């Protein structure tokens, strides 16, 4: 038991270290920008005084290391700095630049919650379907069902998210008005309405993620069913159901958990495009909008959040599959 704890501790430390290095990469990348942020924000017509004011506000006059430490220190406490977009607006409005600054955290927080909701709904639909279908495809491999599923999942994986999104809009919103095609979610909405509005983007993500997850589950199970101990169980005259439940499942747990976590990590990239299509007010859309107006602090913050979630999920996959591995749970 001690050794398994040590392995987990190692993985955790490694995950934290990766996150730390990633934060450096993101910060450095942003600081590779030429010239002056302030100039870029305000445009060519800005007065030197205004630029200098913004520089001071944003702390751009400090050396990079200091700025990084401040940024990281803030980020750990949930303070992600101030948005440029608000500063920009404020300076044009002629008000004092300082008071117009909006914190990144206040922008990100509600949208982050929305994104988690979308991802949650997707996972609730996708995981059971994908695992069931994957196991079925593995059990009846090379049957008509398996071949059809193979062609369909392959097509679904290959299609860009926005193609799937528009096809779903076409059939479920325009031709058969069952679900709304715009996901204008706001605070204080009641749950069922929120769910209805989230359903179409969630279905789009489900199509993509399910395909991935199902293929990976199928491969994992086929791999497992080929092992000699499954043949041994069959040759002991055990019923097919018991073979699956007692012999396959305990060993399939690790690969399936891995598949699920990896695909949830994949969801993170998927939400960006889907949120834009459905105008879903999540962190992905905020990210894309900020990229377009070059709101560096927000871009930086979103990037860090995405990376953290991604690393966390991969870490979880890793740790869960260690825990569910009998060889590691019962060392020699």
């Amino acid at each position, binding site marked *: 038991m001690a050794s398994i704890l040590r392995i987990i501790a190692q993985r955790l430390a490694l995950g934290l270290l990766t996150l730390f290095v990633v934060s450096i990469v993101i910060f450095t990348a942003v600081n590779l920008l030429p010239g002056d942020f302030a100039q870029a924000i305000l445009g060519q017509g800005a007065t030197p005084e205004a630029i200098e004011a913004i520089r001071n506000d944003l702390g751009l006059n400090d050396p990079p290391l200091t700025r990084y430490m401040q940024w990281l220190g803030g980020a750990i406490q949930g303070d992600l700095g101030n948005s440029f977009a608000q500063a920009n607006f404020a300076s044009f409005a002629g008000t004092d630049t300082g008071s117009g600054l909006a914190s990144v955290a206040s922008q990100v927080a509600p949208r982050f919650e929305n994104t988690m909701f979308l991802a949650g709904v997707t996972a609730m639909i996708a995981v059971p379907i994908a695992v069931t279908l994957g196991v079925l495809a593995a059990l009846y491999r090379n049957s008509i069902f398996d071949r059809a599923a193979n062609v369909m999942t392959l097509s679904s994986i290959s299609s860009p998210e926005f193609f799937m999104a528009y096809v779903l809009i076409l059939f479920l919103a325009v031709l058969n008005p069952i679900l709304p095609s715009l996901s204008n979610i706001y605070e204080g909405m009641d749950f069922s309405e929120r769910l209805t509005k989230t359903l179409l983007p969630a279905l789009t993500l489900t199509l993509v993620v399910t395909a991935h997850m199902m293929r990976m589950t199928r491969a994992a199970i086929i791999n497992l069913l080929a*092992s*000699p*101990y499954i*043949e*041994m*169980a*069959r*040759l*002991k*005259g*055990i*019923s097919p159901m*018991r073979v699956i439940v*007692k*012999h396959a499942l*305990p*060993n399939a747990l690790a690969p399936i958990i891995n598949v699920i976590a990896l695909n949830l990590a994949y969801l993170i990239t998927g939400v960006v495009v889907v949120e834009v299509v459905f105008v879903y007010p999540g962190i992905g859309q905020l990210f894309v909008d900020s990229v377009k107006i070059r709101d560096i602090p927000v871009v930086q913050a979103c990037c860090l959040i995405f990376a953290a979630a991604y690393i966390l999920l991969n870490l979880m996959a890793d740790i869960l599959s260690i825990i569910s591995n*009998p*060889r590691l749970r*019962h060392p*020699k």
Partner: protein
Amino acid sequence: MSESELLLKVRDLQIEGRSDEIWNPIINGASFDLKKGEVMGLIGESGAGKSTMGLAAMGYTRDGCRISGGTVEFDGIDLVNAPAAVKRSLLGKRIAYVAQSAAASFNPAHRLIDQHTEAPVQHKVSSKSDSEADGIELYRKLRLPNPDEIGFRYPHQVSGGQLQRAMTAMAMACRPDLIIFDEPTTALDVTTQIEVLASIREIVEEFDTAAIYITHDLAVVAQMADKIKVMLKGDEVEEAETREMLSTPKEDYTKSLWAVRSFQRPQKPAVHTSATPVISVQNVTAAYGKVSVLHDVSFDLHEGRTVAVVGESGSGKSTTARCITGLLPPKQGHIEYDGEILPLDYRKRSKTQLRQAQMIYQMADTALNPRKTIGELIGRPVQFYMGLTGKQKRRRVDQLLEEIELEPDTYYSRLPSELSGGQKQRIGIARALAAEPKFIICDEVTSALDQLVAEGILKLLAKLQDELGLTYMFITHDLATVKSIADEVVVMKDGRVVEQGPKHDMFKPPHHAYTDLLLSSVPEMDPDWLTNLLNERGVDNIGDAAVGKM
């Protein structure tokens, strides 16, 4: 034979396997009978369809295979056409299976005893606690260490030989009428093999269980079976009582199989002690990182001689070869070639030094680049060392192909994948010869080959040695090979040289206890060999051997 005694009746069994959407025959009509309590040995080379037939005797086919004709009748029940539920009620309860790799056939997620009790409980033969107690009893009978406790371990916590016995116990759990043993000792070392063989035979006799014992090793089957059936590429060759089969085989194929073991080279005169050895390994100690694997190993190889380095897996045979070639520079000691000290690292050796020592590998598949033609494979060292190009190179390659008895024009532009296993090994030999070396290391060159093919390779190597005066270092775990080709023997264990000397001395007592154990554990073609050996050693001795190994 009366009908009532008959347990298994197989008639004209045909099995097909699917590849590339086409059904190809695997077994073309096999028939046999098995009486209650009778043990039949099923032997043949790889691809003979032994395992497929063993499984078919249980009414089971692997994925991608199907029974296309014939009948399998177990105690009057037609297993080919029986409903799945009927088959399930027989499997595990009246017919049991012992697989080749016990390590892979035990479920890693459950304890041994839980897997043991599964069949009796599921088939409602006995309760869980009764069957558990019975399991411990069986473990004791099979002479597993700590029988009371070993069942509560997980498979990966138990060694290979012990797992194999635990699996035999598991097969016995419902006291079946028939057990199929599918090469149960192939993956084990000789000294372990003997313990498993003895315990299997004992328990099968005790419960009067019928068995089909599948193996490619004649000597093993001679110990186990009442009668033997020989298979070749899906066809049955012949079937007879064990003693009759051993003494008077009828078919040519069977005779050739029997003859393999009789190949032996004439003894060479003793070496002058003053002669400079071709290769001298002097006090070599080596380690992988911090794990030391060789301790003070020394031996000499003299010109025109074959030295066999023998030992079980993990004894350091291959590591010694890596030290000689310079792939693993020794921590201490050195290697001398013709009296001259070689640089320890192969990267520091000159082209001539590299050329003089060549190597032939165990797996010809991985030793030949699959993307190169035979001409390129053999031509490269010819060009690299001898500087021959164009027509001269071609002529030399043709010459080499003739030496290894392959027709140059047919094989020159073929790829390794278009050759059989034995032919590939010959190409490996030709590539070594192309460097015109004095000394060749043969690393288990015959262990991946079928016996007949292996014998061909050994004969070829012997012929080349006579013609070219080569010196061989023969790494092997197979003592039959040693007997047929070696002049001198070096026995290794746990990274040390246990004993060394000329072959005729080594195969005569007295010798070191380990050599004794090793030598006496090699099964012989005498059906009484195992019985005699067990009497000689005494039952307890076997247990000691097991402990000694751990």
